[in-house]
C-alpha cells in the first residue's frame, strides 16, 4: 500500500515517470482513450519471472504507449530529442542483445520515431528478423517496418525476397496478404522478377481477399518490370466475372495499367477480349441495381468502381470508333441518371464527362458533357467548380467554341477567393483569349493582375505578354497593355520581358514619340519597378530628342526640358532601389543623350566621369569607356551612339502569321523607315557590343539552353546590359578600322578555343541502362595544358531521367573544374541531351583517368552508379 502511494506521488511529475518505468520495467495497460492522458496508475503485468531477473540485468524496454506518452510530455524540441536519443540507445542495446521477446515492441517504437522524423535506419535488419519469425504479430510489425524503413538499394532485399516467397505460400491468408502488400509497396525490380510467378498464382486463386491484393501487386510488378506483363495476361481472362467488388476494382486497375503501357495489349483487349461490352455490362448493373447496403456510398452503388470503369473505358475508346460506338449509350445513361446532390454523384458525372470528351463520341453527347461542366461551374460547391475549370481546360483545345460560351462564368471565377480556383480560372481565361475578344478579356485579366496575390503575378504577366503578342489588335494597344503590366506588376515581370518589350518598341517606329512620353510619365513619380525603369531608360536614351521636342499628336504633349530628363535618369542612378542592371541602363541612356541633347553635354560629361570611380565594376567600366569616347574618340561618338536600327522579328512563340487583327490593319512598319544610315554604324555598334560584353564572356557551353537569336539585332540588345552573354560568336565579324586599342585590353572577344582540337576523337564513357554519356574534347587555346571535355548525356529508355547529377574525380596530379550542366532532366527516347563542360588542368601531361559518379531518378526510383573512364584518346592529354 505504502509503496503504491509513493509511486503515485512520484508520478505526479510526468517527466520522471517514464524514467521510473524504464528502470523498474513496470508497464501499464490501457483500455480507453481517456486513460491515454491521465492514468498514472501502473498495473504491473509483466510476468513475474522476468521482473525479478531483469532488475539485475537489463530492464525490459518500455512499451510503445509509454514512450509516446513520455514524448508528449516534452515541452521543447530539445527535450523531445533528448528523450528519443535515450530511448534509441536502449533500443540499440536491446537489438545487440538479440532479444527476441521485445524486438517487436522496439521496432514499433522505432516506427513512431521515424514518423516524427528521427533516424531509424538501424532497425532495418530487425524488421527482417521479425518477418522471419513464426508469429503473426511479429510479421505484421516486421512487414510494416520494412515498408517504412527499407529503401530500394538495401542489400537486405535479397534476404527479404526469400521471406516474402515463403510467406506468399503460407497457410494463413493474412500472412500471404502481408507479403503481397509489402511486395506491392516496396518490391524492387529484382524482387518483382523473382516473385512474379507467385503473384500470378495468387491472382488465379478463388480467395477474393488474396486475389485483389495479387491484382494490385501485379500492377506494381508491371510498373517495375514491364516485360513481365505478358505473364499476367492469361490470369486476366476471368477477372471481370468476379462478383466481389474489391477484386473487380483492382482488376480494372490492372487492366488499365496494361492497356496504358502497351498498345498491343490495348488492341488485344479491344479486339480479342471484348473488354468494352464486359465493362458496359458491369457499369449497367451498377447503375441499374437498386440499393445494396454492401457497396452503397451516399446512395450510389460503389462510385469508386464506377469511376475506375469509366477511366478504363476512356482509354479503350480513345481514337477507336468501334469501341467508342459501343459505349455511347451507357455514357449517356450514366450522364442522365446519376443523382448529383452529393459529391459521389458528381465524381461519377465528372469522370463521365472526361470520358465523353476523350473518346470519339457523338456530337450530341459532347454538347451534353460541356453543359454538365457549365452546370458544375455554377455549383455552390467549390470542389465541383474547381474540377469544372480543370476539365474545361482539357477540352478547350478540341471544343473551343463550346467552352467560349461559358466565358463570362469563367471570368467571374477570377474573382473567387480560393487560390486554386483562381489559378485554374486564370489558365482557362488565357486559353480562351482570341482575336475577337482580346480587348475585353485583357481588361479583365489586367484587372486580375492588379488585385491578385503575388504568386500569380509572374505567370499572369507572362500570359498577358504572350496573348498580347499573338492577338494585339493594334500596335498602340499592344504597347499600352504591356505598359499597364509593367506599371502594375513591374517587379514580378520575368527578366525576358524587358528585351522583348524594347524590341517591340523599336519596331513600332511611328509610336516612338508616344511611347517615350508615356514611359517618361510612368517613371516620373515612381522608379522602383525595375523592369519598367529599364525599358523607360532605354527609350529615353534612344528617343530623348522626341521627348523634349514634344511632337506627339495623340496625347496632350508634355513640355520637358533636357535638364528634367537628366534629373530623372540621375535619380535612378542614385536611388538605392535601383538594381545594378538598371543603373547600367540609365548610364547608357545618359550617354546616348549626349548626341541627342544640345545644351547639356557638359552635364552629361560630368555624370559619366563621376561614375568612372563607382564601386560597381560594371558601371565603372561603362563610365570609363564612355569617358574615353568623350576625350580621345569624340569624332566617333555620334556614329557610335546612333539610334538602334529596327530589329528583325524573332519568333519565340510559333509563327506570327496567325495573328488575328481585329479589323485594324497596321502599316507595314519595317518599310516606313529607310535602312538606318548604311552599314557602318551597325557594325560599329557590334564592336561596341564586343567591348562592353567582353568581360562577361563565359567559356563556351556548346548547347547552352539559351535561345539567342543569331541576328545582329538580337545582339545589339545586349549592348544595354544583357549580362548573361554566353560568348556566342558575333555574326558579323566587324571590319573596324580605327579600333581603340586600349579598350581591347584584357577583353578577349575571340572564341576561346581554336580548331586544333577538332582532331581529337570523342569517346563513349558510359553506356548502361539506357543512359549513354559521350565525351568530346577540345584543347583550350589560352592554356594548352587544359583539356576541355564536353559531356553529352542521352537517354534511350521510354521514361525521362530526372535529377541527373554527373560528378567526376581525377587523380591528384590533375585539377578538375565542373561547369554547371545544361539541365537536370534527360528526356526519353534520345530526344535530347544534357551537356556539361569539364575542364581538366593537366600540367604534367600525364595519361588522363577519371572516375565518374552518376545519380538520377528513373521510373520513380533513385539510381546511382560509379564508373571509371580509362579510354581517353592520347591526343586529349599529350
Amino acid at each position: 500500500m505504502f509503496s503504491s502511494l509513493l509511486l503515485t506521488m512520484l508520478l505526479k511529475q510526468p517527466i520522471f515517470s517514464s524514467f521510473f518505468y524504464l528502470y523498474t520495467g513496470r508497464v501499464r495497460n490501457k483500455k480507453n482513450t481517456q486513460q491515454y492522458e491521465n492514468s498514472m496508475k501502473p498495473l504491473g503485468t509483466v510476468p513475474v519471472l522476468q521482473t525479478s531477473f531483469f532488475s539485475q540485468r537489463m530492464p525490459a524496454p518500455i512499451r510503445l504507449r509509454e514512450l509516446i506518452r513520455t514524448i508528449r510530455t516534452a515541452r521543447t524540441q530539445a527535450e523531445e530529442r533528448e528523450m528519443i536519443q535515450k530511448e534509441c540507445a536502449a533500443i540499440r542495446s536491446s537489438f545487440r542483445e538479440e532479444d527476441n521477446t521485445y524486438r517487436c515492441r522496439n521496432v514499433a517504437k522505432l516506427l513512431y520515431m521515424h514518423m516524427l522524423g528521427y533516424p531509424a535506419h538501424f532497425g532495418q535488419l530487425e524488421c527482417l528478423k521479425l518477418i522471419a519469425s513464426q508469429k503473426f504479430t511479429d510479421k505484421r510489425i516486421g512487414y510494416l517496418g520494412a515498408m517504412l524503413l527499407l529503401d530500394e538499394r538495401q542489400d537486405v532485399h535479397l534476404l527479404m525476397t526469400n521471406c516474402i516467397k515463403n510467406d506468399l505460400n503460407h497457410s494463413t491468408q493474412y500472412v500471404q496478404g502481408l507479403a503481397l502488400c509489402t511486395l506491392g509497396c516496396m518490391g524492387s525490380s529484382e524482387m518483382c522478377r523473382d516473385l512474379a510467378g507467385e503473384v500470378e498464382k495468387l491472382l488465379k486463386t478463388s480467395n477474393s481477399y488474396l486475389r485483389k491484393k495479387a491484382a494490385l501487386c501485379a500492377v506494381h510488378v508491371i510498373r517495375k518490370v514491364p516485360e513481365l506483363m505478358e505473364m499476367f495476361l492469361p490470369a486476366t481472362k476471368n477477372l471481370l466475372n468476379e462478383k466481389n467488388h474489391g477484386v473487380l476494382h483492382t482488376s480494372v486497375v490492372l487492366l488499365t495499367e496494361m492497356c496504358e503501357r502497351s498498345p498491343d495489349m490495348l488492341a488485344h483487349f479491344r479486339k480479342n477480349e471484348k473488354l468494352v461490352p464486359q465493362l458496359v455490362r458491369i457499369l449497367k448493373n451498377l447503375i441499374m441495381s437498386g440499393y445494396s447496403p454492401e457497396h452503397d456510398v451516399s446512395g450510389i452503388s460503389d462510385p469508386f468502381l464506377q469511376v475506375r470503369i469509366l477511366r478504363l473505358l476512356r482509354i479503350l475508346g480513345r481514337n477507336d470508333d468501334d469501341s467508342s460506338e459501343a459505349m455511347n449509350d451507357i455514357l449517356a445513361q450514366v450522364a442522365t441518371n446519376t443523382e448529383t446532390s452529393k459529391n459521389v454523384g458528381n465524381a461519377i458525372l465528372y469522370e463521365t464527362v472526361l470520358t465523353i470528351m476523350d473518346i470519339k463520341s457523338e456530337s450530341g453527347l459532347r454538347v451534353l458533357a460541356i453543359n454538365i461542366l457549365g452546370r458544375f461551374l455554377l455549383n455552390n460547391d467549390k470542389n465541383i467548380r474547381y474540377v469544372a475549370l480543370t476539365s474545361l481546360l482539357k477540352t478547350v483545345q478540341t471544343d473551343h467554341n463550346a467552352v467560349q460560351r461559358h466565358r463570362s462564368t469563367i471570368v467571374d471565377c477570377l474573382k473567387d477567393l480560393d487560390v486554386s480556383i483562381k489559378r485554374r480560372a486564370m489558365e482557362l481565361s488565357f486559353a480562351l483569349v482570341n482575336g475577337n475578344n482580346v480587348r475585353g478579356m485583357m481588361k479583365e485579366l489586367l484587372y486580375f493582375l492588379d488585385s491578385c496575390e503575388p504568386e500569380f503575378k509572374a505567370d499572369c504577366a507572362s500570359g498577358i505578354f504572350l496573348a498580347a503578342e499573338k492577338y494585339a489588335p493594334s500596335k498602340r494597344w499592344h504597347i499600352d497593355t504591356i505598359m499597364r503590366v509593367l506599371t502594375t506588376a513591374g517587379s514580378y515581370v520575368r527578366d525576358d520581358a524587358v528585351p522583348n518589350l524594347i524590341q517591340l518598341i523599336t519596331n513600332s517606329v511611328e509610336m516612338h514619340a508616344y511611347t517615350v512620353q508615356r514611359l517618361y510619365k510612368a517613371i516620373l513619380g515612381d522608379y522602383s519597378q525595375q523592369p519598367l525603369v529599364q525599358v523607360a531608360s532605354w527609350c529615353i536614351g534612344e528617343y530623348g530628342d522626341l521627348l523634349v521636342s514634344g511632337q506627339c499628336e495623340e496625347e496632350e504633349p508634355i513640355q520637358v526640358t533636357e535638364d528634367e530628363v537628366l534629373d530623372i535618369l540621375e535619380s535612378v542612378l542614385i536611388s538605392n532601389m535601383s538594381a545594378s542592371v538598371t543603373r547600367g541602363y540609365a548610364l547608357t541612356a545618359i550617354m546616348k543623350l549626349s548626341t541627342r541633347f544640345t545644351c547639356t553635354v557638359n552635364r552629361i560629361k560630368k555624370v559619366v566621369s563621376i561614375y568612372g570611380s563607382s564601386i560597381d565594376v560594371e558601371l565603372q567600366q561603362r563610365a570609363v569607356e564612355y569617358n574615353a569616347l568623350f576625350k580621345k574618340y569624340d569624332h566617333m561618338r555620334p556614329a557610335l551612339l546612333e539610334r538602334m536600327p529596327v530589329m528583325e522579328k524573332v519568333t519565340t512563340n510559333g509563327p506570327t502569321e496567325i495573328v488575328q487583327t481585329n479589323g485594324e490593319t497596321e502599316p507595314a512598319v519595317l518599310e516606313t523607315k529607310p535602312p538606318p544610315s548604311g552599314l557602318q554604324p551597325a557594325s560599329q555598334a557590334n564592336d561596341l557590343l564586343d567591348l562592353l560584353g567582353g568581360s562577361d564572356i563565359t567559356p563556351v557551353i556548346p548547347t547552352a539552353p539559351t535561345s539567342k537569336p543569331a541576328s545582329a539585332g538580337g545582339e545589339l540588345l545586349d549592348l544595354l546590359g544583357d549580362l548573361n552573354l554566353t560568348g556566342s560568336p558575333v555574326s558579323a565579324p566587324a571590319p573596324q578600322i580605327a579600333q581603340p586599342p586600349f579598350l581591347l585590353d584584357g577583353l578577349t572577344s575571340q572564341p576561346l578555343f581554336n580548331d586544333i582540337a577538332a582532331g581529337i576523337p570523342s569517346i563513349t564513357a558510359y553506356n548502361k541502362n539506357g543512359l549513354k554519356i559521350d565525351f568530346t574534347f577540345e584543347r583550350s587555346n589560352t592554356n594548352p595544358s587544359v583539356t576541355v571535355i564536353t559531356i553529352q548525356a542521352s537517354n534511350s529508355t521510354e521514361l525521362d531521367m530526372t535529377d541527373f547529377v554527373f560528378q567526376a574525380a581525377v587523380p591528384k596530379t590533375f585539377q578538375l573544374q565542373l561547369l554547371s550542366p545544361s539541365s537536370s532532366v534527360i528526356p526519353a527516347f534520345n530526344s535530347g541531351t544534357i551537356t556539361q563542360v569539364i575542364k581538366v588542368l593537366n600540367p604534367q601531361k600525364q595519361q588522363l583517368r577519371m572516375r565518374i559518379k552518376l545519380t538520377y531518378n528513373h521510373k520513380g526510383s533513385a539510381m546511382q552508379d560509379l564508373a571509371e573512364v580509362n579510354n581517353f584518346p592520347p591526343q586529349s592529354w599529350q
Partner: protein
Amino acid sequence: MIKAILIFNNHGKPRLSKFYQRYSEDTQQQIIRETFHLVSKRDENVCNFLEGGLLIGGSDNKLIYRHYATLYFVFCVDSSESELGILDLIQVFVETLDKCFENVCELDLIFHVDKVHNILAEMVMGGMVLETNMNEIVTQIDAQNKLEKSEAGLAGAPARAVSAVKNMNLPEIPRNINIGDISIKVPNLPTFK
C-alpha cells in the same frame, strides 16, 4: 497513383505518414512541413484541392485534403486519380477509422499509429485503392487482431516461457540443492544458449 498519405494535426505534428514513392527521410519530413504549410493557411470554405508543392513532384501532382476537427487528412495524388473520388476515399478512410476505434479521436491515432497503418494497408496498397467497402475492411482487421490476440494468450505462453528462461542468464546452474535434510542432485542440463 496515390503518392503519399499524410495525417497531421492543426499544429503540423505528423500523426501518420505513408509514402508510396521513395523519398529520403529528410525529404519526407520536408514534404510534411511544406504540405502543412500549404494546407493550414487555407480557409474552411475553399476547395479541397491544391496544386502540389515543389517537393512532391511538379505540376502533375495534387494535394487533396479534408479537415476533421483537429486533424488534416492529405492525399498527394497524380493525374491518374479522380479528384472527387479521392475526396470520397478520405471520407471512407475516416469512417473506417471511426468504426475500428469507436468514435475515433486524435489520441487514438497517436497511440495506435501501427493500427492505423494496418487499416490503411487494407484500403490502399502500393498507391492504389484496394478496397472501399467499409464492412469488409473492418472484418478483415478484426480477424487479424484476433489472430494476434490468440498468439498473445494461452497459445503463446510456451514461447514466452522459453524466451524468459533463455533470458535468465544464471551465473551458474546449481549442482546440488539442499533443503533441510532433503538433498537434490541436479542432472546435467543441456545449455540453453
